[in-house]
């Protein structure tokens, strides 16, 4: 007799993979993902509406600055206009905003800076305000420097832009250039992905358990196989669905991205590439630096870590969710048990930012040891290069906890699936552990 657990895995896997929703989600997933990558770029490259700003510049502070792409500055003659006239003009014309710079007495920059006014037909945008702030500050600074007899040229020369190149000390002198921004992004994205996947597939396990319970087939099945086998078969089968879906997603996303970038918007991507290679020298070095940083990231570790922590976390949580699913009759009742189970995961997401900023701090360390948070927190930390012993310790704790939790969840599951029409309390769940 073949092991019945393989039959269960097979059924769980095939019954999900053949569903229309699986095919739909699996195909739409990469589309959404590709859209996520491409749409912002597309939107950013769209030409903005041009805004015309009329300026009444009494001290001739900005004149003859013409603004930039989105904002055109046009000047009124201060000898022929005052604020009231300018306001009337704004009201009756097609200008979008009015900037008023008073000269006050003695052209005092400190007086000027406090009395500049901006009127808009609608609320002036933050972006416009920021832009004008920047322009005016620059001009007022220069005016102040000149007033104090300092040549602005010298100041510009003195201004330094520090650019620290940081390295991680390697074992045998081959220090690696550290790549904090890339690592931060990688850690955050992979951490979020793991959270999403664990949650997504664990909930499917819970739903599967509830389906078997509410359709009343479960007792028929456990008269043929052990409840534990049924639970593990379900967890493994759905885990395989996850693996398949993930592989398809990665493959399709890659294909889609390539297709779109080469066929549909070739000019857009060519532009970006050109800007990187032949454009201004600053962009050039940034591109090279990113390449350098990417080279310093250990992708093998990250991919292996992702696989390990996804499965570890998924097995752990899906066992808990299976227990929850077995204890309730309908999905609405599952909320009271689901919340406490998911709190550790949510905690790991909330602390993600702190962990990224200090990947070797004590918060990060402990969160990556506690098995209920470690899949997410450790994943966030992994790109930063974590001492091997920490990774192994956290992994060992996760695996050990998994076996304990599966044992306990199996006990609750065994009793729960045969319990109908009863609102289960926490107290009751603990009692089941002793049956």
């Amino acid at each position, binding site marked *: *007799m073949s092991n*019945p657990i393989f*039959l*269960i895995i097979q*059924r769980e896997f095939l*019954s999900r993979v053949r569903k229309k929703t699986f095919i739909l989600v699996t195909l739409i997933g990469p589309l959404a993902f590709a859209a996520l990558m491409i749409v912002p770029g597309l939107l950013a490259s769209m030409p903005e509406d041009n805004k015309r700003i009329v300026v009444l510049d009494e001290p001739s502070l900005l004149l003859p600055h013409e603004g930039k792409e989105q904002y055109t500055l046009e000047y009124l003659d201060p000898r022929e206009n005052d604020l009231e006239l300018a306001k009337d003009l704004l009201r009756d014309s097609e200008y979008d905003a009015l900037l008023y710079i008073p000269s006050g007495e003695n052209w005092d920059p400190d007086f000027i800076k406090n009395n500049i006014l901006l009127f808009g037909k609608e609320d002036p945008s933050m972006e416009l305000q920021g832009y004008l702030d920047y322009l005016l500050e620059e001009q007022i600074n220069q005016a102040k420097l000149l007033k104090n007899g300092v040549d602005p040229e010298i100041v510009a020369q003195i201004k330094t832009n520090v650019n620290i190149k940081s390295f991680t000390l390697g074992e045998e002198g081959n220090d690696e250039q550290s790549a904090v921004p890339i690592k931060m992004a990688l850690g955050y994205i992979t951490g979020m992905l793991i959270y999403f996947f664990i949650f997504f597939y664990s909930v499917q396990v819970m739903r599967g358990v509830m*389906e*078997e319970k509410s*359709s*009343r*087939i479960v*007792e*028929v*099945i*456990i*008269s*043929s*196989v052990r*409840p534990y086998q049924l639970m593990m078969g379900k967890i493994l089968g759905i885990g395989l669905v996850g693996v398949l879906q993930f592989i398809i997603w990665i493959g399709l996303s890659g294909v889609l991205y390539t297709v779109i970038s080469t066929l549909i918007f070739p000019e857009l991507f060519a532009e970006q590439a050109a800007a990187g290679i032949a454009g201004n020298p600053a962009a050039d070095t940034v591109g090279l630096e990113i390449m350098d940083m990417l080279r310093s990231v250990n992708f093998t570790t990250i991919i292996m870590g992702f696989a390990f922590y996804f499965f570890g976390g998924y097995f752990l949580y899906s066992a808990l969710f299976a227990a929850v699913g077995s204890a309730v009759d309908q999905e609405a009742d599952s909320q009271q048990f689901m919340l406490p189970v998911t709190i550790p995961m949510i905690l790991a997401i909330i602390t993600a930012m702190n962990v990224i900023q200090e990947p070797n701090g004590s918060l990060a360390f402990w969160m990556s040891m506690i098995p209920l948070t470690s899949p997410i927190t450790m994943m966030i930390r992994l790109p930063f290069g974590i001492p091997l012993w920490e990774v192994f310790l956290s992994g060992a704790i996760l695996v050990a906890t998994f076996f304990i939790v599966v044992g306990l969840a199996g006990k609750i599951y065994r009793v729960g699936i*045969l319990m*109908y029409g009863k609102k289960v309390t926490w107290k009751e769940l603990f*009692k089941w552990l*002793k*049956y």
Partner: protein
Amino acid sequence: MITAKKVTKEYSAKRALDAVDLCIPKGSIYGLLGPNGAGKTSFIRIMNQITAPDDGAVYFGAELLRPSDIARIGYLPEERGLYKKMKVGEQVLYLARLKGLTTSEAKSKAKEWFERLEMTGWWDKKVEDLSKGMAQKVQFVTTVLHEPELLIFDEPFTGFDPINTNLIKNEIKRLNENGATVIFSTHRMESVEEICDHIGLIDNGKVMIEGNLLEIRKHYKDGTFAFTTRTSITDWGEHEVLSQKEDPMGYRTILKAVAFPKDLVISLSQKEALVAFEEVLPTVNDIFIEIVKNGPKPWNHE
């Protein structure tokens, strides 16, 4: 077929089975009877190895019940159902394979049963598209498909419509004639009286009485007799009249006799008033009520 020795099962506050001794003879149709909550389902789950007893042992044939024995048992639980989204054929094959059949064995047996119960053409239907009666037939087929030696039905006729009930009763009888041992568990004792040859009565986790149904009924006979007479007779002497009513053959009077009413039979016969005379055996229900009220009646030969 099944022998239980001192089987005990406790749930935190309650003793579901209390040193239960039962013997289910091979080839019998056995009624496991008792009110709701008596411990019937607990015992059935132990036979199916869904739970293990806290104490005592269950033997399958001559040997202790083993995990591999589940392939020799067909079980229709009280809480029963099927995967709603799965196709009928796939589902039948899946459940049969879980019981250890190969795919080809399961397929050929399923075909036989589908033809037998006039279910051909259902193979590719989803269970959710079947009517309730159709789903019940599928459920029955999944229970018996692997040709188990022991069939266990927990409250089998609740939820089945009369046509299916009849059909399934006949199928069960046929399976029994072909050698399968059958256990019916129910709280509706009258529903199995005609079909069972052995019964076990359980109440509060304890076996009240067990054995051959006919012998038990004989043992519990209490001197009740039925007389059918041409005319209405009012004087029954020292015997207590339990009921009297007109029936197609005359008047039927049920008596609780002090002793065998030989004189009554003779005198009524001589008057040519007697149409029929019989001793009335108690029903399982009567026996159950009697035992709950007064305790089991000792066997004389013991």
